[in-house]
């Protein structure tokens, strides 16, 4: 067991974990942050995307021990003071989700994309989301959602 301490969605947390525990398992099993989900075992699907020290990572592809001392933001920490993040709002507005399983990762990656490129072209949006698989939407309305969020000035 290794002791780790980190900040998750603004809260300081600390646990003894097995070194083999993945960050996504730590979030789900130790912290009950089940909003972040696991969709594959090869890091292709991106459903587990969170922000680690401010940039997007696939939390199935990071060990919990590697996140020691880090700041993690999940889908559950994106809304502030009861206000949805503009990207969350845009996904609802543009029907950018159906079953919703890929949605946490899709939203977290979209937020990251807009933080580095506030006015992306459609092609830049599509390339920016290449690490996130969705099986329901055909991506059309996800792209619309990111465009909508950009038009609302969602950059952080």
């Amino acid at each position, binding site marked *: 067991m290794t002791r780790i301490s980190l900040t998750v969605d603004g809260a300081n947390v600390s646990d003894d974990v097995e070194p083999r525990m993945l960050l996504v398992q730590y979030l789900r099993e130790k912290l009950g942050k089940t909003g972040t*989900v*696991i969709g594959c075992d090869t890091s292709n699907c991106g459903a587990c995307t969170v922000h680690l020290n401010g940039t997007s990572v696939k939390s199935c592809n990071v060990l919990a021990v590697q996140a020691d001392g880090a700041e993690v933001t999940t889908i559950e920490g994106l809304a502030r003071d009861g206000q949805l993040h503009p990207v*969350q709002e845009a*996904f609802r507005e543009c029907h950018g989700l*159906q079953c919703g399983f890929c949605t946490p990762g899709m939203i977290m990656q979209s937020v990251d994309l807009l933080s580095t490129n506030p006015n992306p072209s459609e092609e830049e949006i599509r390339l920016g*989301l290449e690490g996130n698989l969705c099986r*329901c939407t*055909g*991506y059309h309305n996800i792209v619309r959602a990111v465009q909508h969020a950009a038009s609302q000035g969602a950059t952080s």
Partner: protein
Amino acid sequence: MTATQERPSEEVEREIGRDRRRKEDQRLITGRTRWTDNLTLPGMLHLAMVRSPFAHAKIVSIDTSAAKAATNVVDVFTGPELGETLGVNINAWPITPEQVTPTHSPMPADRVAFAGEIVAVVVARTAAEARDAAELVDVEYDELPAALDLKSAAADEVLAHPDLGTNKSALWVFDSGEAGTGAPVEDAISKARADGIVIEREYRQQRLIPAFMEPRSVVVDPTGEQYVMYSATQIPHILRFALAATTGVPESKIRVIAPDVGGGFGGKLQTTPEEWIAWAVGRRLGKPVKYTETRSESLVSAHHGRDQWQKLTLAAEKDGTVTGLKVELLADLGAYVAIVGGGVPVLGAFMFNAIYKFPAYHFSVQTVLTNKTWTDAYRGAGRPEATYAIERLMDELAVEVGVDPLEIREKNWIKHEEFPFTTVAGLEYDSGNYEAATARAKEMIGYDELRAEQRRRRESGDPVQLGIGVSTFTEMCGLAPSRVLGQLDYGAGGWEHASVRMLATGKVEVVTGASAHGQGHETAFSQIVADRLGVAFEDVEILHGDTQVAPKGMDTYGSRSLVVGGEALVRAADKVIEKAKPIAAHLLEASADDLEFTGGRFSVRGTDQGMAIGEVALATFAAHNLPDGVEPSLDSDATYDPVAFNFPHGTHLCAMEVDTETGELRMRKYVCCDDIGNIINPLIVSGQVHGGLVQGIAQALWEEAVYDESGTLVSGSFVDYLLPTAADTISFDIDHTTSPSLTNTLGTKGVGEAGTIASTPAVVNAVVDAVRHFGVNDIQMPCTPERVWRAINGAGAGGSTEGAAMPHFGEAEASGTSEGGGAMGNQEQPGTSSTEGAGA
């Protein structure tokens, strides 16, 4: 005290037709979700499965002692140890009385029939410890020859189940001559051979994997009076029935809950070995248990789809008027006959004739057992295969006649004034307008300009060629009239159930037997009920997916929820109004005959007297002043059995650029004009269409479940089973024409599968159209750049895909193979190193 709802009808915007944002989304976009894998119950134990690395082998012995001795392992079970409590996995649709159906034990005792089949289950305090111990289970196998290739299996060269004596499961035939719905097809073909056109083709429907995003998960809680199964399933009601029917637990002691379910596409229309094993283990130990599959396990063990060879003969007159169609299918069932199983190709049997006026039609399907993952419904189930075949053939006919592919279709399709039209397959199409949808689609894509550009590119020998693909599809959905299902020997009916409960506070609870997993039922159904009862959209709550809450239902598949479940809703809501009417009349001191109900209000004709239905609900709840003999409840149920299938249609056009140097494809534009009758929520419809399109396009271009020569699934992870990303797809132009269905009150047609059914042939037709001048008339799916390049260079339609994966993760190094081929597929097989001759 009276909650008056002043909603005069003229001020109320109708809910039906509005692009309401979804009620479901608030939770889903904030991560407040209830996926089965999120559930943790006190004392819960975790399961890990030990799976066979071999496609076909005798189980010589299983030594579980080391696993049982591991720390925090509670127990390890093999098939014999769980015995009859395991039950069996059933086929609900024996398509012929003679169907050969192998017994499907969830965990066989003596022989495995596909790579990935479960032979033992480990129970431990954590999932990690269960997985660790699974690797300690030592299984000795005696490998048997495996039946892998579909055509070879159909010839019984190697038997998938030696004791059955054959791989041929069932031969199902429809013949219009015998059925009296048309002429004998052989006469038409003979005549065409002598003095007409005969198109003969063989097309491959490759094996696909539904690949829903949420891996399957099951939790069994045996601690209450009712045993509870939570499952990531599309079919909680069918699952409950099957558990009762096969495991000896009374149905009344079983509660099944489908919590948030992350997509299905038919892939969760199944009763699975994993569910049955978890059920048996939970009952045995008296403790809650959970099993969540990995993606690799999902790809190898959740059912696959499609997988057919299609032998097709189309007869026509010289001018292109079709005279006959003969369809002979081979369909790969995989190792077992799944719950719908051979019924999937039968669902396509009535659709090969599509929108065309064939006077003669013959269909046969031979279903075949092999030593591969079982197959069953995948989005469209039978109809995509049929639509692909006929829409590809119509393009070939157009070439033969020398006319535009749309012209040959128009020559043969049912004219809008000819509806209702009874087809050569015996179905009555109630409504449609193929001319209107086609005209609109042509306008949207700029058809004539694209044809002109295509000519220019051909004439100039441009390395980038342009193709335009057409698909004028129809399909049958809204499964299904129970009487028809009975005639087809399906094991259940096709009705749907709804209840409407009027709460005292003015809220309305609606219970539906259709169990959504991403479709947006909560929103669309709320709109229907809000309109029908004249209550606020926000005041309607949709309940589903729990057999104690929604005790009756036939679940969600086959584009049935709206056209069957929605009709049940309408009927239940109408019953509420009928029950409320005498109470309202009594309270208003008027005659019921003088009341009219509009905009949620009963009013007395010719007066300003009236009351809202919510007021009636409260008065009924209080029951202080009801007419004599009237029960104090407005709550109503309806169970609706559809009278007919439902026939959406549309015209899809695809413009595809082909880089003739590399075979690379670039979709430039895709437009579709679908006629799905009246639309409840255009936003939800657009999502269904977009998503359906991409799944159909993905069959055309990317997806294929590939096995190697030993029966290992090579495309066993998302590295090698290629789902498209946002970067691989384009934005779509979609529109609608409206020919309301005449067989349901709302005039709606199904939309869940339409995009998938329509798009695959549109895309392949576009690819072939782009390179036809190189002498190409077919490219096998998926149309990989390599296949396109080889076709251009005269190498035919492309053979089977190489059964080897790239060794990206260094597994070659890890497992000691030289090629690394198949190692991805072996990854879930603990104990490989201790088994004889294991894949490495």
